[in-house]
């Protein structure tokens, strides 16, 4: 990078917050995928004003800028594929306000997701979105990726809780959008526009979220199946019976085996599948739902339905579930998590399809997912160094996506597009949809400096796929 740009950055944010040594750059070159690319500089800001000044410098010099929270996304979204500046957001870590009277809270973008959840729960309040990476992701990253999680089935995803935010635009403008009210129809819904934009439209500084009262009671149960399809049918059946538990997380035998190998929590590894179910509400409501669920599950062929007796027992099962993706790492160098999501009624069909594809290409593809939403996470356990296998992986992914779309589903339920799923974008949104997105991006960020090369490319743009 040219020295004059570095000098300008020194001036606006202080030398100690501008990192240029190769050792530093390496540490901000990756996320939780296997993509990587060195930035030219890492900047560690602490306020909207500083970020605004940094963006002004970047915009003047047409330097790419990639905001980075926990670097835990699963689609290459925070990899600075075109070099430029990485904005490390960790220092913006204040919970600004938890307003119990209005059931809202405002946090800075770098606040850790789990810390935020704990802080609101300590006040008897509830922020439901629960990406399984909550311990290490940031609220800004959650909003930028529109993260979901198991509880999405009952409560929705991050987007459903965002009321307002402070963003810095590509030219350095600091903008407050949305507000503190649940109802707000003043103009276009800009908060939703920025939510899920993967850092391509603006840098999120702070977010105001809607909260709920903490439910009075909750219980966790595990329904166990001798046949994977029985499990898949149970999910569809619970929904058909108009029961809305908080979560319906299915894990197949392979998944449970891998979890137990690395983090034993007592999952039934001899069963073909199990569904981890959480219900919440009033004590009475919880009891009623559990009985109904058990009945449905048994009718669909559940061999066993066990209820966690204590909070610790429940927490342990959830620890296992949270560790699932990581546990794949014990058996595979490159676990690729897919995120195909289908209408709930198509779930059994999709599960079967994935298992068939795995067989066809001789791949190990444990299946788990937030199945209540029809959101599946088949995890392809592979090794990026095995080029022959990677070719089969590519083909399998192609088939899975095409089938997802054929069933009326979507490429990504919650992990986003980033670099990983770009080539399928047109398949889902069509040429016209893509063009509209390109125009919107151009209007907000005419110089294409904000996380360029992500989600889709501008007409003349190219990226180095192998990077």
């Amino acid at each position: 990078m040219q020295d004059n740009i570095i000098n300008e950055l020194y001036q606006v944010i202080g030398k100690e917050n501008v990192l240029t040594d190769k050792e530093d750059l390496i540490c901000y070159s990756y996320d939780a995928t296997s993509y990587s690319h060195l930035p030219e500089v890492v900047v560690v800001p602490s306020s909207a004003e500083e970020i605004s000044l940094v963006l002004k410098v970047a915009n003047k010099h047409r330097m790419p800028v990639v905001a980075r929270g926990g670097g835990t996304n699963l689609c290459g979204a925070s990899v600075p594929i075109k070099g430029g500046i990485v904005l490390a957001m960790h220092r913006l870590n204040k919970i600004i306000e938890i307003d119990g009277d209005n059931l809202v809270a405002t946090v800075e973008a770098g606040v850790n997701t789990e810390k935020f959840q704990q802080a609101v729960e300590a006040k008897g309040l509830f922020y439901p979105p629960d990406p399984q990476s909550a311990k290490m992701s940031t609220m800004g990253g959650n909003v930028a990726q529109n993260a979901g999680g198991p509880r999405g089935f009952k409560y929705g995803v991050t987007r459903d809780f965002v009321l307002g935010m402070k963003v810095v635009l590509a030219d350095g403008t600091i903008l407050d959008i949305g507000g503190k009210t649940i109802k707000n129809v003043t103009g276009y819904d800009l908060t939703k526009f920025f939510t899920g934009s993967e850092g391509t439209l603006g840098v999120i500084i702070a977010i105001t979220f809607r909260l709920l009262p903490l439910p009075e009671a909750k219980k966790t149960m595990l329904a166990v199946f001798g046949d994977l399809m029985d499990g898949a049918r149970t999910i569809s059946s619970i929904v058909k019976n108009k029961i809305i538990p908080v979560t319906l997380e299915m894990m197949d035998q392979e998944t449970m085996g891998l979890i137990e190998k690395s983090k034993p929590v007592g999952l039934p590894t001899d069963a073909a599948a199990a569904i981890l179910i959480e219900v919440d509400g009033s004590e009475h409501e919880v009891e009623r739902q559990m009985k109904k669920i058990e009945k449905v599950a048994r009718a669909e062929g559940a061999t066993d339905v066990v209820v966690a007796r204590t909070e610790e027992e429940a927490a342990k099962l959830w620890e296992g579930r949270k560790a699932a993706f990581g546990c794949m790492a014990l058996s595979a160098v490159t676990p690729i998590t897919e995120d195909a999501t289908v209408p709930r009624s198509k779930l059994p069909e999709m599960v079967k399809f994935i298992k068939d594809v795995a067989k066809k290409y001789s791949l190990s593809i444990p299946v788990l997912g937030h199945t209540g939403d029809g959101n599946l996470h088949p995890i392809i356990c592979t090794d990026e160094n095995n080029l022959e296998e990677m070719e089969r992986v590519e083909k399998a992914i192609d088939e899975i996506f095409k089938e997802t779309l054929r069933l009326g589903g979507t490429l990504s339920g919650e992990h986003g597009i980033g670099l990983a799923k770009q080539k399928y974008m047109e398949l889902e949104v069509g040429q016209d949809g893509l063009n509209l997105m390109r125009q919107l991006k151009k209007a907000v960020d005419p110089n294409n400096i904000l996380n360029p090369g992500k989600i889709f490319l501008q007409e003349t743009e190219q990226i180095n796929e192998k990077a």
Partner: protein
Amino acid sequence: MKKLESYHDEIKHCIRCGACQAVCPVFEVMEREMAVARGRLRLIREALEGKLDLTDKMRDYIDLCVGCRLCVDNCPAKVNTDQIVISARHKFVDVKGLPFLHRIMLEQILSKKGNFNMALKSLGLARGTRLNKLLPEQLKKKEEILPTIPQRTFVDKMKEMTLDTGAPKKVGFFLSCMDNFMFPEVVEAAIKVLQKNDWDVVIPTDVNCCGAPHHVYGDWETAAKLAKKNIEAFQDAEVDYIITDCATCGSVLKEYGEMLSGDAMEQKGKEFAAKIMDINAFLIDVVKMKPGQNKVSQTVTYHDPCHLVRHQMVSEQPREILQAVDGLEFRECSDADRCCGGAGTYNINHYDVSMKILDKKIENVKDTTADILATSCPACRIQLSYGMRRAGLNDMVVHPVELLARSYED
């Protein structure tokens, strides 16, 4: 010990999930990617793949790891970052030698008992004559970390003790440098407790430093030399167990087999390592100790040394000891097993980071409102005592066996 190259595959199993960010104490206070396992592993991987030279900056980042193993416990892929970091330091020593200050500390002071003694004596003298007040500000703070140095070492005191009481059983005791020079009262308490439970204690005084500082800073050659001397020191002890009250010593003594791998003494190292036991574990699991009748009417909480809870998997036994003492009320501390930031000389080499980690620990200790803080490692004890003094609290840090000893009549 394993060379860095042999960890290449294990490093590749880091899937960059970031889970270590949630637990790494250094990351918690520095909030930068190079301060967490994921970043360290990436730097090492790039170096192994020839994409990064072994630079001083990389060495600094590698040095920032306190070796607490919190990340390993939490890592889905079970990547042994602490061990990989040690091997990386060894690689640096191999290629670039020891940095000057480490060389003085490891080769001149810690390996030679006389010099260590002299260094501490000079410190005592400097303090006595208030010469320490003349130190530059940054050094003055570091000097304050060290506790009051007692007039007489344990070895001095031992000359007046009867260790052979003709008890039916006997156990070897590895005397750590820190106990000898700074906390002789812990060894005295250990002897008392064991004798009250009908065990005699054999304490060879020609032992050397256990080699932990040399080992973790990559000076494996000196560490192996020290290991051999220590094995020889116990040659004639005729004991089945060798215990220590120092968690750091214990964790490294248990590695002597591997530290001497390929050496003529490898087998002896393995046999020696198999005898090593932490004193808390020994008292509960082997001695099945009985506390005395005296009441100790105080409240106590406990800090788990990383080298005990995660390196040796001992966490229940010290608590059992504390709970067994009549009158003593045990209060669990939140995050009791989180690192205190002491880590041997980490608090001297990385004072600011170490103090931030320490302050979090002390906050949790304070919340328990316990009168006494017990811990099972002299290195933690030095750090925690300093933390208590910094926070204006009563400096009441002891080893669990000291409280147990108080329960017996003299």
